[in-house]
């Protein structure tokens, strides 16, 4: 399953870090952060609840880049 979320982040390097953090989260198969359109496309692994996974993704992203936001 794939979903797109709006994000807010200030710099391109931070966006890359968010992408890494999202990819490393359990339940995420793949994630792409697009800094130019301020969007995050997340592909979830089978059998994971998107909402719960996204909470984790958000937490992990905040860890690497304090100033970011994912609009869930």
């Amino acid at each position, binding site marked *: 399953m794939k979903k797109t979320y709006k994000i807010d982040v200030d*710099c*391109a*390097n931070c966006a*890359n870090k968010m992408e890494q953090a999202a990819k490393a989260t359990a339940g995420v198969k793949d994630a792409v952060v697009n*800094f130019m*359109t*301020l*969007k995050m496309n997340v592909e979830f692994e089978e059998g994971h609840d998107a909402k719960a996974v996204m909470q984790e993704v958000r937490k992990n992203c905040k860890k690497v880049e*304090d100033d970011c936001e994912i609009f869930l």
Partner: protein
Amino acid sequence: MTKKQKKMLARILIAAALMIGFHFLPFSGYVRFVLYLIPYLVIGYDILIKAAKGIKNRQPFDECLLMAVATIGAMAIAVYEDGDYTEAIAVMLFYQVGEWFQSYAVGKSRRNISDLMDIRPDYANVEIDGKLEQVDPDEVEIGTEIVVQPGEKVPIDGIITEGSSTLNTSALTGESLPRDAAEGDEIISGCINMTGVLKIRTTKEFGESTVSKILDLVENASSRKSKSEEFITKFARIYTPAVVYSAIALAVLPPLVRMIGMGAAAEWGTWIYRALTFLVISCPCALVISIPLSFFAGLGGASNAGVLVKGSNYMETLSQTKCVVFDKTGTLTQGVFEVNAVHHNKMDQKKLLEYAALAESASSHPISRSIQKAYGQEIDRSRVSDIQEISGNGVTALVDGIAVAAGNSKLMDRLGIPWIDCHHAGTIIHMAVDGEYAGHIVISDIEKPHAKEAVKALRAAGIEKLVMLTGDSRKVAEHVAADLGIDEVHAELLPADKVEEVEKLLAKKPQKAKLAFVGDGINDAPVLSRADIGIAMGAMGSDAAIEAADIVLMDDDPLKIAKAIRISKKCIRIVYENIWFAIGIKLICLVLGAVGIANMWLAIFADVGVMIIAVLNAIRALFVKNL
């Protein structure tokens, strides 16, 4: 300006004013330090907090840490020597000015590019109880009648049931010439109705309409990252820690060597200052921001010209294209066939055409349609039965109970019927009625008006080899190829043969030269996906083309292929300019900083200045009108 940007601007101005003001105050020692601490904290508090959080979260190597270490270090040296505090504040100040500018420029170009691609209709007019009401296009069901007034965008694909008008399709195709539309015509969402009121019966949901598909495609395009972008991301990941360690080495090693090895004074202050300069120079933001921005601008510019590129990676591949393979029909020729002549017929010409039209009645192939058009009467499908389409050969059917075969010479061979060759260049449909050869129909196709120019433009754009593949007869293919100036022709191919030919060409070419296949997207899907890059033409309304191709040309004009290549070349050139420029200047400044020639001010230029120039350069990729 957003709220964040306004706040930042205020902080920048206050800190600058304080810093200049304090310069004229006659304090010294710790009072001076405390005073200067005020503007330093005003401008830099968020950076310091972020740096601390970064260390806490074990993500220390970011630019905030670089800035924090560099400025705290500069402050410390200033306290130690009771010297110049302005340097630390200025570094922070300029860094923030740079960040502010970056955020402003990126925000602005993001808006510009989005506006450019903004073909999203906001509402649809539906007549409810005799009154027109604006509703969300998402809520309009298939088969609803909607009204589009002059000046409005067509929100949903459909068929015109009432009215006629001129349509501006430039947002979709980049073509400025308006199109006429009248009752009964299909109409595509995203066009702007210019003159008359139109009533449209919708044939698709909003989500399935052309405009939604295109928007979806364009918005997701920059998510497919190119090799250069991946390179930069990887580069940044190694680069920052490498720079931090080199800076530490620069601060510690030379003094130690001087002290122990040479017995000279250690000069800790000088070397730490150099190390800090080194840190400021090293911020990777110019690279990290300008490369995706260049691609984004390039994609935006291309889609404005009616060329939809599905990802940054295809932009890169397209720019390396050296060989272009065309499908003939619908790509170089109009695909509008006309029956030119009927030869060697024993029965009446009309009767033969009637048989042909009936046998081909189930096919929507352009050739079948031209025969049906030449027949010119309603087709009574109940007269036809047992229709069999033999791919690449033709059809056989029973018409009024009589066996009719219509197709090329291969079909005749297959049926064991002797046939007579034609000396005309054109598509030859051999006919057999009741097992006997009944003559052939000559159908010819017309080259597109820009086909010749397109071939020339492609050569000018650096394409070395042009190949044409077609299912059509060798004679026609060679005639067209010679006329247009195409190097290589492969004719009489079945759809599967086309894939094979493309594979042969792929194997022959050098690794770096890419091969593009251009087709009309209807039956070329396998080839489109097999080639390095698949370009579909005339895609307005054809979902298959949008799905299968990597690049979609919104109108039928083959000239756009060369334009797409030129756009991609410009975009990639800008990307490389930015990579070389940013890395080059940084390396030079790093060396200058390490040997002590560059001071903090040059370091700030190397960071902020380079970034601003790279961002401005990236925006150039947006301008593709005159390419």
